[in-house]
């Protein structure tokens, strides 16, 4: 079950806590860099740098609105991550389910002796 080629980049993008804060800030709707700077008390160059990384992996897009550039969240690009996480959860659940079945089997054997 190989991961989608973009997944590692999405991982790196969201592994950084300031970038996660930016994604959170954009959940409410599209915002200009200045508004994100105000919301998160980060410097403008810092926010711009993180927005660039997020844009590269498709998690945010940007459009011009007069003098402003507005950034918006593209949550569907988190899908590879979610799909991969659900496969991991499946693998863990399968192992623990086998252990559960085995525990039942051992206890039933104990009762019949």
């Amino acid at each position, binding site marked *: 079950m190989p991961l989608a080629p973009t997944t590692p980049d999405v991982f*790196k993008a969201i592994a950084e806590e300031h970038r996660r804060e930016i994604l959170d800030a954009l959940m409410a709707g599209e915002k200009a860099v200045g508004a994100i700077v105000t919301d998160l008390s980060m410097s403008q160059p810092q926010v711009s740098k993180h927005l660039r990384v997020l844009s590269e992996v498709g998690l945010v897009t940007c459009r011009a609105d007069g003098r402003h550039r507005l950034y918006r969240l593209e949550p569907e690009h988190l899908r590879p991550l979610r799909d991969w996480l659900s496969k991991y959860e499946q693998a*863990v659940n*399968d192992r623990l389910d*086998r252990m559960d079945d085995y525990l039942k089997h051992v*206890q039933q054997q104990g009762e019949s002796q």
Partner: protein
Amino acid sequence: MTPHRHGSAVIEFPSALEILTTREFDAPIELVFDVLTKPEHVRQWFAPFDDTMTVCSIDLRVGGAYHFVFVTKDGRECSFRGTYLEIERPTRIVDTWLFEGWPDAEAVETVDLHETDGVTQLKTNLAFRDQAGRDHMTKFDGQEDSWDKMEDYLRSLLDPRPRD
């Protein structure tokens, strides 16, 4: 009538370096501890049913080693090994955890067991080493690095082949 617990594991990521799995079993704590730590039991559930367990050795004492190997039906070998750091029967086991082929993904695994009215809760925390401290990297580079490791580990569970 006992509840059906299949698929009920709760998986959380308390930090970028940790994976915490919680699951309950309708069995007494002593039995759950044995099923986790005796090779004759582990052989019966650790590997998927179609796969063959070729190595299952457990030296259950502080400083002792364990090694599990199973071969998937298409011939891939999956090897897990480590050393016991703490053993408190029947409530706690701490060990190192290494999936071979992924030498950087070594973790410390902490297993905590707790029984209430015949139901035993198993909590397994896998804490990956913080590369940041070792390599004097910046805080955020370190975080990214640990996510890479976690991804390697998770990927290894899903698709246990060496990286290209």
